[in-house]
């Protein structure tokens, strides 16, 4: 299990001031990965994310911290919150359990 501490390092793409009100840190967001993503990132990590962080911003943060997973986090990888698929514009909140699904396949 890895961990990610973004207290001093994180600056979302396009944001100039690292300590705006929006950037208040909140702990406790668990992120679960499956399939090839679990192999390159780990099955579960806990991250600090800015307040009002969207799924697409979360993808960018994770891609910065885990360059090996950068491509894997984009193409056809779905994000789920509370077992529901959410859009990239969805705002994740402290305490949310976020899951990233690489393409699924049965049969």
């Amino acid at each position, binding site marked *: 299990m890895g961990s990610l501490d973004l207290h001093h390092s994180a600056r979302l793409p396009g944001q100039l001031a690292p300590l705006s009100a929006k950037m208040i840190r909140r702990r406790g967001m668990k992120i679960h990965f*499956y*399939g*090839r993503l*679990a*192999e390159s990132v780990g099955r579960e990590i806990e991250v600090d994310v800015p307040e009002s962080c969207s799924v697409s911003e979360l993808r960018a943060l994770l891609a910065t911290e885990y360059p090996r997973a950068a491509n894997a986090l984009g193409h056809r990888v779905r994000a789920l919150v509370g*077992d529901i698929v959410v859009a990239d514009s969805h705002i994740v909140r402290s305490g949310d359990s976020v899951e990233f*699904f*690489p*393409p*699924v*396949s*049965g*049969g």
Partner: protein
Amino acid sequence: MSVRARLEAGPFDPSAELARLVEAASNDGAVVSFVGLARPQSKDGANVDRLVLEHHPRLTLKSLEDIAVEAAERFDVSQVRVVHRCGEIGAGEPIVFAAAASAHRRAAFEAADYLMDRLKTEAVFWKREEGPAGASWIEPTEADYADRGRWE
């Protein structure tokens, strides 16, 4: 109408599944079943010892149930069955049993075809082939997505 979907962590017997379905379908006129097996070779010809199917603790079974229910709603069938393995599956072992029964054959054929096209692209599993050359993740192909698209 009887719709059943099951996730199996260990080997299962497709012939026993079929026998039970035939018995349950005694008032129907047709039973169509499909059995998927773990291939001993990958697409590029490398030997495969086992297939590993990772699953989700809540959403995998739900995906099987949803697909089975939607097949039952879409086609004029009286019975739908899906049995799907998870975990480590040796080459040659059954992965999936998908079947339907109906009064006339066409609906059962179509329901089984539909079940498999949906399962290939929407059942919540992550597949990895393991063999002497290493491991590789298997994802749906464009052909799989195109097959799924036939039903939209």
